[in-house]
């Protein structure tokens, strides 16, 4: 148990607001539960503002800029008081960090621009929170399985999380982390791309699946459940015998979990 983890430059014990994302809230609640488990194990107090819904990424990236504005307003209002907002989705954090300023500009509302400017640096992805803010790599997890890590495009190229997730994984006891060939290639999800350009998307995920199977891993891990749903959907269709897990879910695992 780590009792007294503090954010650099602050004196109060750590308190974070969880932005679960609409997608995880609805489709992958176990990831949210895992985030709470890991953070509480580290002595962090987790808040979950129930008024939160969606960051607006799907609308923004599909071309619906107008529809994104109220969602950005909502986000900055819901998390206005949070010192740190953490999310287990690199993609949604990327939306906030890279595009909220643009949405605020489109809204023509100077107030929203200011609010976005204030909140953006406080929104972090899980591995960023753990490594940069809390300064931990070993979160006390145990997971005796062979896993391979797929760095999602937005974690890699929008957030530049680098090897943070891998450092967290390698510190897990019992784990066997194997390198994924051509890891930095997109899995072909891309939000509505997977539907609008289904054929191309499928061609991309086929190659990703082949790379995963080549590793002999039991589990494919990632920092985004959206990409994992895509990869996992293809693995499941092929009855490949490999499952997908969010990084947080592995970090939440302990000896007791694997015994049960």
């Amino acid at each position, binding site marked *: 148990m780590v009792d007294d983890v503090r954010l650099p430059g602050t004196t109060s014990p750590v308190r974070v607001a969880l932005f*679960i994302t*609409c997608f*995880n*809230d*609805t*489709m*992958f*609640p*176990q*990831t*949210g*539960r895992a985030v709470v488990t890991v953070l509480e194990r580290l002595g962090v107090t987790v808040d979950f503002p*129930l*008024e939160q*819904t*969606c960051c607006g990424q799907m*609308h*923004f*990236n*599909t*071309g*619906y*800029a107008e*529809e*994104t504005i*109220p*969602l950005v307003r*909502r986000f900055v209002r819901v998390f206005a008081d949070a010192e740190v907002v953490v999310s287990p989705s690199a993609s949604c954090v990327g939306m906030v960090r*890279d595009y909220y300023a643009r949405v605020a500009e489109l809204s023509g509302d100077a107030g929203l621009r200011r609010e976005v400017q204030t909140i953006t640096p406080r929104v972090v992805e899980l591995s960023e929170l753990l490594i940069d803010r809390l300064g931990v790599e070993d979160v006390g997890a145990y997971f005796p399985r062979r896993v391979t890590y797929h760095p999602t*495009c*937005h974690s*890699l*190229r*929008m957030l530049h999380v680098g090897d943070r997730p891998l450092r967290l994984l390698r510190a897990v006891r019992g784990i066997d982390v194997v390198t994924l060939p051509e890891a*930095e*290639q*997109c899995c072909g999800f*891309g*939000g*509505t*791309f*997977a*539907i*609008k*350009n*289904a*054929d*191309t*998307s*499928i*061609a*991309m*995920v*086929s190659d990703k699946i082949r790379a995963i199977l080549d590793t002999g891993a039991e589990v494919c891990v990632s920092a985004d459940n959206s990409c994992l*749903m895509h990869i*996992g*959907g*293809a693995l*499941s*269709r092929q009855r490949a015998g490999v499952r997908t897990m969010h990084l947080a879910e592995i970090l939440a695992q302990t000896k007791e979990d694997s015994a049960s």
Partner: protein
Amino acid sequence: MIDAGTPAFPEAARTALADTQLRHNLGHATRTIRAKRAGVVAEMPDWEELREAGRALKERVLRHLDAHLTQLEGSVTRAGGTVHWARDAEECNRIVGDLIAAHGAAEVVKAKSLTTEETGLNEALAQRGIRAWETDLAQLIIQLSDDAPSHILVPAIHKNREQIRALFARTLEEAPADLSDDPRELAETARRHLRKLFLEARVGISGVNFAVADTGTVSVVESEGNGRMCTTLPEVLISVMGIEKVIPTWEDLEIYLQLLPRSSTAERMNPYTSLWTGVTDGDGPREFHLVLVDNGRTHVLADTIGRQALNCIRCSACLNVCPVYERTGGHAYGSTYPGPIGAILTPMLTGMTGAGSLPYASSLCGACYEVCPVKINIPEVLVHLRHEEVARSTSTRGVRGRIAPEHVAMRAMARVFANRRLYEAAQRAGRLTQWPLVRDGKIRRLPGPLGGWTAARDLPAVPPQSFRDWWRERRP
């Protein structure tokens, strides 16, 4: 010639994806060049600074494009050249055609030029009875097979040696009866064919990689030397350039001559860099014409987010790293400029009509932005153009646009996300109404447009308890 988006990208891609030869050729070629590029970029300690310099300079040039262009016109004219201004493709083709006709030439040799590909120059000249011979080896292959280029730098990347052997044997009289698919033999056949043309042609046509405003120097960067044949042997040289290709000073070449070869061919230095300033007595062409082409570029310039596309130095690094391009090839984009750069440049140059599917031909993975030597944020522009496309399709298609299923669904979801109660009700509704689709916790078949997902991928069923329900239960 730009014939954007016909058929739309998803349909064209479907055909391309089924072409196993294409997939094999492209997969091999792009993987090879990707690795080589990464190697020569990694050995540059100041690569990021160079990229930033390349971007910043282009941005500055674009901000004062008018001044740089008039300065270029003055410099070229003083050096003995003639500058022509072409508003669009038609005007460009007419100017070039008139110049050739004035010299009574029926055949011209051409160095590889994307701008003349964009304006459809060869077809326009053919209508006036002028035969334009492509002399870049890959471009010659494309011309002989009556095909379209599928890559900015390697137009025939989709063809393999055997396909080229068969083509040469069929179309070139210089081909020996026992022509093999040995690259040296193929190149030798093309060389014998081209050498004759170079020596006979009275007019040469080239594109332009960079034009230096303060000296009037024009530059073509290439690998084969055939471009230099076109720019030095004929009496008359006509160079066609997009107006964004101007750079202020000679020193500025330093930035781009480092960025371009490493990004495009993964070479430290390209084999042939030709630079010429007007005309020189007793050396090279006796007449030099520079045609400055707008053809939609000022329209791109007016777009504050999109104008960064004009930074492009046509290196094709974005194509080589693009996971979509690697699988579909260039033809699926239906435009002179394929790949990520084409997906943003084409709709802006030609207008969104007919090119509306191109900004969606990307998973927004960002690999293109990462390698772009002039830091064009392609994902940002793609998303920006998607906004324009949605605005266009809802405003121009009237009620039909507004009731299109995607628009209706997106608006409805926006309303749901804007209201916590509606959002939670939708979560419950999803759980309750999915049962006809769920088997063993998975959805294997979705109706309508969503069926694209389940064509090859399962979908997990919505689990019985949302995260927020768990949270509420845990902390009453």
